[in-house]
């Protein structure tokens, strides 16, 4: 962690703890529950995100299976319509906010600092805080399952006026929509804070020699995603604030009788919602851009163009939101403008696909499991893109809007795109993170079952949509011509479930009993693989790398003598400055997040005293955080590779 000038003001950062109040003593546990609760290590935080994301991925999957069972046959009575509404709402909300986004965050956290040669992110405690707040948001969103009010049931996009008190307050104390609002707000805080941290880290904490155009593509995509998050979330924050004001304080933002316009919700939501889908796909594109070169044994084709396209997609993504509203009667000019802009976005996306194909072309293809998922990504994401371009033509969209055609489109880009890439990334980086490699046979088997199951589930939906089956309906009649396609789709869903089951079983098994590996098992190209051991040590690198070219680790491997001499020099210099500076752990990110959780839960139930209590806990957390000081301690790496030092063990001042 780079120390700012502020540390100079601390006369005795590691002084005897007796001189400071007990609540300012920094925790030093490196194993056990306390080490996880107080961690500021980007790698541990990444693992926390991953574990919970994967858990919620399974929750979302179960929600989906229940939906598919209900839709397997016409006029089914498997579940009530109320429960059905809760399920499709929560399936989407869970998958988007509690599965894909945090799984992307897991990779940002774990891999990005390693890829830029840093020891941690710019603000380690803030990083921990972002995770705990994510968990708080996840709790608030799901608490409804255990209450009479039930889970939120207004769709993941919560259109007004369905979300108003008039239509979404089935009985006094029905807080499901209020919990949905609060849960999303809390998750927004987590995402924005995490993203601000990543931006500062990538801009300001790169290793010497690592210019922006030498950054790994995954790190570039992390940067673009972070910008998308900080610039798009405010719109949904405001939309949710206005909705909350309508429901709790009787304002008229979306209330027609007071002069409000419900369509304003749609605009504000989609100003967020469209960049959100790029937030979901850019990290995936980054992962694929790392995997393809490694398993084609050649560098990424057209690196500058791939980076530039990512930026263009991000930027244009802010100008197309009303393509979700083609059928709302915005007028010819507006509809045409958004239609054109949407078609334009297909261009940089297509450019990326061509560059990926260019990477494969002439390469020595190794069809290992991560590569299978990455190849699957290219094909499946392309198909999702084709149906997307079909949507961009407003007249065609008039038929497709709100039908299963849309469901097919976004599942192709989200599962075929985002999820495939994330599953690829797990296999790819598993040896780095855990020091074990997943069995080829079982990994590939899980891929094929997932691939078959996924296509069986969602391909028929294109036809269902064009044949008129509407979204979000709990039952359909038997003489619409939709029966066989729905049944096939449900069968596909269960095949997909089996595939996911195999995938998870294999991963868990490998964690405990998998074959151990040497750290650079794929002969990869980027810096995260250059760590001294797998799992990496807490301080990441014994010596901060100096970067000479793109694909920095490849350069290191092909210029071993030069690099070794350089590292010896840097090691000596670092030691002469006091050693490796590490951030101290802290309780306060957790305390502050608990304040947010407590306050949020009470506020959503209109219990303002409780909300104030939560606010006080939050304030105490923030004050403790501010006044405990930046902390920090030093580690010393010795020429034989051993590491000494730790929290509270610094003898002299810095």
């Amino acid at each position, binding site marked *: 962690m*780079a120390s700012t000038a502020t540390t*100079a003001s601390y*006369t005795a950062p590691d002084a005897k703890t007796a001189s400071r109040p007990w609540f300012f003593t920094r925790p030093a546990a490196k194993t056990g529950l306390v080490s996880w609760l107080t961690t500021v290590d980007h790698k541990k935080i990444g693992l926390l995100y991953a574990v919970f994301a994967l858990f919620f991925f399974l929750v979302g999957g179960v929600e989906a299976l229940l939906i598919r069972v209900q839709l397997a046959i016409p006029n089914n009575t498997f579940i009530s319509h109320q429960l059905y509404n809760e399920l499709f709402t929560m399936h989407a909300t869970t998958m988007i906010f509690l599965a894909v986004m945090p799984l992307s965050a897991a990779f940002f956290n774990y891999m990005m600092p390693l890829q830029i040669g840093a020891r941690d992110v710019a603000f380690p405690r803030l990083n921990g805080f972002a995770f705990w707040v994510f968990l708080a948001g996840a709790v608030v969103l799901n608490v409804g399952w255990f209450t009479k009010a039930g889970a939120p049931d207004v769709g993941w996009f919560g259109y007004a006026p369905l979300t108003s008190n008039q239509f979404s307050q089935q009985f006094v104390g029905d807080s499901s929509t209020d919990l949905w609002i609060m849960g999303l707000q809390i998750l927004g805080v987590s995402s924005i804070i995490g993203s*601000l941290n990543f931006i500062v880290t990538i801009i*300001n*904490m790169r290793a010497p020699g690592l210019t922006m155009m030498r950054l790994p593509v995954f790190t570039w995509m992390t940067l673009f995603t972070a910008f998308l998050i900080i610039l798009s979330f405010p719109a949904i*924050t405001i939309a949710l604030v206005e909705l909350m004001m309508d429901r709790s304080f009787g304002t008229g933002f979306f209330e027609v009788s*007071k002069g409000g316009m419900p369509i304003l919700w749609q605009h504000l939501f989609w100003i967020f919602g469209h960049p959100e889908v790029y937030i979901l796909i850019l990290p995936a594109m980054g992962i694929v851009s790392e995997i393809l070169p490694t398993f084609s044994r050649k560098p990424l084709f057209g690196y500058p163009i791939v980076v530039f396209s990512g930026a263009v997609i991000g930027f244009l993504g802010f100008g197309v939101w009303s393509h979700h509203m083609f059928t709302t009667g915005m007028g010819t000019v507006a509809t045409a403008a958004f239609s054109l802009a949407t078609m334009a976005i297909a261009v940089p996306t297509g450019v990326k696909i061509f560059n990926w194909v260019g990477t494969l072309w002439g390469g020595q293809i190794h069809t290992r499991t991560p590569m299978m998922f990455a190849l699957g990504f290219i094909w499946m994401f392309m198909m999702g893109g084709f149906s997307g371009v079909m949507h961009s033509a407003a007249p065609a969209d008039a038929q497709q809007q709100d039908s299963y055609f849309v469901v097919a489109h976004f599942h192709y880009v989200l599962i075929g795109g985002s999820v495939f890439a994330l599953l690829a990334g797990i296999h790819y980086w598993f040896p780095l993170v855990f020091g074990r490699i997943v069995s080829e046979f079982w990994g590939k088997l899980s891929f094929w079952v997932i691939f078959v199951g996924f296509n069986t589930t969602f391909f028929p939906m294109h036809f269902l949509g064009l044949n008129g089956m509407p979204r979000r309906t709990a039952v359909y009649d038997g003489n619409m011509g939709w029966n066989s396609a729905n049944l096939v789709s449900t069968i596909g869903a269960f095949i997909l479930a089996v595939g996911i089951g195999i995938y998870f079983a294999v991963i868990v098994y490998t964690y405990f009993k998998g074959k151990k590996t040497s750290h650079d098992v794929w002969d990869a190209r980027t810096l995260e693989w250059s760590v001294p051991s797998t799992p990496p040590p807490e301080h990441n690198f014994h010596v901060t790398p100096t970067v000479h070219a793109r694909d920095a680790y490849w350069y290191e491997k092909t210029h071993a003598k030069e690099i070794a001499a350089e590292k010896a020099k840097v090691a000596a210099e670092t030691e002469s400055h006091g050693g490796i500076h590490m951030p101290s752990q802290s309780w306060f990110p957790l305390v502050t997040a608990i304040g947010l959780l407590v306050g949020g839960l009470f506020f959503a139930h209109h219990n303002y005293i409780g909300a104030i209590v939560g606010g006080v806990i939050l304030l105490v957390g923030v004050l403790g955080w501010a006044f405990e000081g930046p902390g920090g301690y030093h580690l010393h790496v010795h020429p034989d590779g051993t590491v000494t030092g730790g929290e509270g063990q610094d003898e002299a001042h810095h």
Partner: protein
Amino acid sequence: MSAHAGTIDHHHDHTTVTGIPNKKLFMWAFLASDCMFFGALISSHVIYRLHPVPNATDPLKVFSLELTSFSTFILLMSSLLMALAVGASQKGKIEATRKMLLGTIFFGLIFLGCQVYEFTHFVHLGMTLKSDVFGSTFYTLTGTHGIHVAIGVLWLVFMYIRTFKPADASKAWVARAFTQFLAFAVATVTIMFLMLEVTHAGAEHGYSLASITGALTHTPLAAVSTTAFALSIALLFVLGRFKQPVDFGEANAIDVESMGLYWHFVDIVWIVIFTVVYLLEYL
């Protein structure tokens, strides 16, 4: 990372790739995000002003341009004081920093007081959050800005208290700091309450020494508030006379600067709000 004797280069941070301190970069990125936040709020307000609704509040009947102009001027001056506080902290001048911070707090509270007064006045005239969409958008927009100001004031108070942290780490400080904070809290709450009492009395009986002193003492609550206010100010004065060496200097200027960025941003948002929400209504 050692600073050379006396001066830290506040324009360049050697430990970062760009030379921009991490906290500064973080704050600018956050402000870029906050632009979108206020953009969405301002949009909501402006959209509803584009197409008037029958029986809506007429802003010109409730607005008091004199009051709003005054509070705009106050906020601009608070921005000046904040910039001076940052400058003082960068030169390691603790006393000057404290004075400027107090000045900014004071002006920020005046701004908030004007807003509290304005809101109570509008509510008296029948314009509430619920009454119509103008009330909804107006209070939400200016209220959110007001909350930003309040958070800024809170942050300034904590920064002020922080400047008293003793250099000797073994000296007790938490209790003292807590007392200072409590004094600020009591002073703020009581002055807001008393301001409302005085303005009510002024509106009813006209402003005079008699009506003001009457307002400050006419109920037990008012009398207690007046006493509490006086005591808390006195306490702040006493606690502010700390002469021992403190653990606050040039190295902490980055924190004051970051806070300054936030405070100035709140000011520029008000510049936009003043024009768009108030001035444009008069055309």
